[in-house]
């Protein structure tokens, strides 16, 4: 786009030759990302000040993170073991909303070159929400080989989240029409869908339980700060939820009192279909 200002076509030719020169191709991942962030901010500003009608057209012009992916992958391919490649892959995973083949490719590049990096804690958190086989391999490896306790702990915790997600996915996939499965292939890749098609949700839940338990039992993992507490505290609530509050489990007893102070028990309602509504008048 820059050569637009140059006017004469000869100059344009020189400029486009320059555009493809190695000098300009060597833009760093940080620069590519900064360019996107700036474009996004600019779009956001114009969106905020736009009228309702203008917004409909504007929303289709929102800068999409996946537009950057070809450039980020080029950076990775040029020098996969570099800091810059790490930044590029990490951004696609944690902020670029990568899915399908892009996501798997970004993870695979980290798995090959950066499993010992100190910055993988956030990557692990993003992968706990990605129930793919590639993400599973990545987290398993990082938990084993990372020299950083915090990263290992997050890898373990997010393996638990991942197995829980996989179990959920196995349940939703049961009896799913072909079109739905095709969507899942686009989203997670063929390998994951094929593996989960024949997987046992209960076994996956057991794996999740074991990993949450591991976070609680390993003192190095348990004490890692997370949210307003520690990783062990989060693992504990998740474990409880998985064991007692997931679909298919018998609801835990509530033995308390009603608003008026009269005794009230959940089990008093056995034999009826029950809707429990956690509510407040706010």
């Amino acid at each position: 786009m820059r050569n637009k200002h140059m006017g004469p076509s000869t100059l344009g030719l020189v400029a486009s030759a320059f555009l493809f020169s190695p000098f300009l191709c060597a833009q760093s991942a940080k620069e590519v990302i900064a360019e996107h962030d700036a474009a996004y901010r600019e779009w956001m500003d114009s969106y905020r000040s736009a009228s309702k009608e203008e917004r409909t057209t504007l929303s289709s012009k929102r800068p999409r993170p996946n537009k950057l992916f070809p450039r980020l992958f080029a950076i990775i391919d040029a020098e996969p073991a570099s800091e810059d490649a790490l930044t590029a892959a990490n951004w696609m995973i944690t902020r670029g909303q990568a899915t399908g083949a892009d996501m798997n490719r970004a993870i695979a590049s980290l798995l090959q070159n950066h499993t010992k990096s100190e910055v993988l804690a956030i990557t692990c958190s993003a992968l706990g929400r990605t129930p793919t086989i590639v993400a599973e391999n990545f987290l398993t490896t990082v938990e084993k080989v990372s020299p950083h306790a915090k990263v290992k702990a997050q890898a373990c915790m997010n393996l638990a989240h991942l197995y829980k997600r996989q179990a959920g996915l196995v349940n939703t996939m049961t009896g799913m029409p072909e079109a739905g499965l095709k969507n899942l292939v686009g989203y997670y890749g063929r390998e994951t869908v094929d593996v989960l098609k024949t997987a046992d949700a209960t076994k996956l839940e057991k794996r999740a339980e074991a990993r949450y338990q591991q976070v609680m039992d390993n003192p190095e993992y348990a004490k890692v700060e997370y949210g307003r507490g520690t990783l062990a505290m989060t693992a504990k609530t998740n474990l409880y939820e998985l064991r007692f509050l997931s679909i298919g489990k018998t609801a835990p007893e509530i033995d308390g009192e009603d608003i008026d102070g009269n005794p009230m028990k959940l089990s008093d309602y056995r034999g009826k279909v029950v809707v429990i509504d956690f509510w407040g008048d706010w």
Partner: protein
Amino acid sequence: MYPHERSLVKRLKDKPFALIGVNSDRNRETIKQVCKDKNISWRSFWNGGSTSGPISSKWNVRGWPTIYILDEKGVIRFKNARGKAMDDAIETLLAEMSQGPQTQKKGL
């Protein structure tokens, strides 16, 4: 929420169905008045006057409203189904109940 819940309770009053709340408001007297004013006839557990009360903490509730739907055996069958999805979920479970004994007979 209230209008949908009121109509649900009214529509299913002759069915084996119960709507129960877990209320996390701060003031008991205020909420008693709200129930009167807004015609909230169903019972609610008292969550100790806080969103971090004993019941919501144990049930790991982090958003309000959170909804659990249990079948007649007390098994959790749906989570956070709202509006039409909630109606459908309840219908499914009620239909299961009325079909239940028949299926068992077949088995014998």
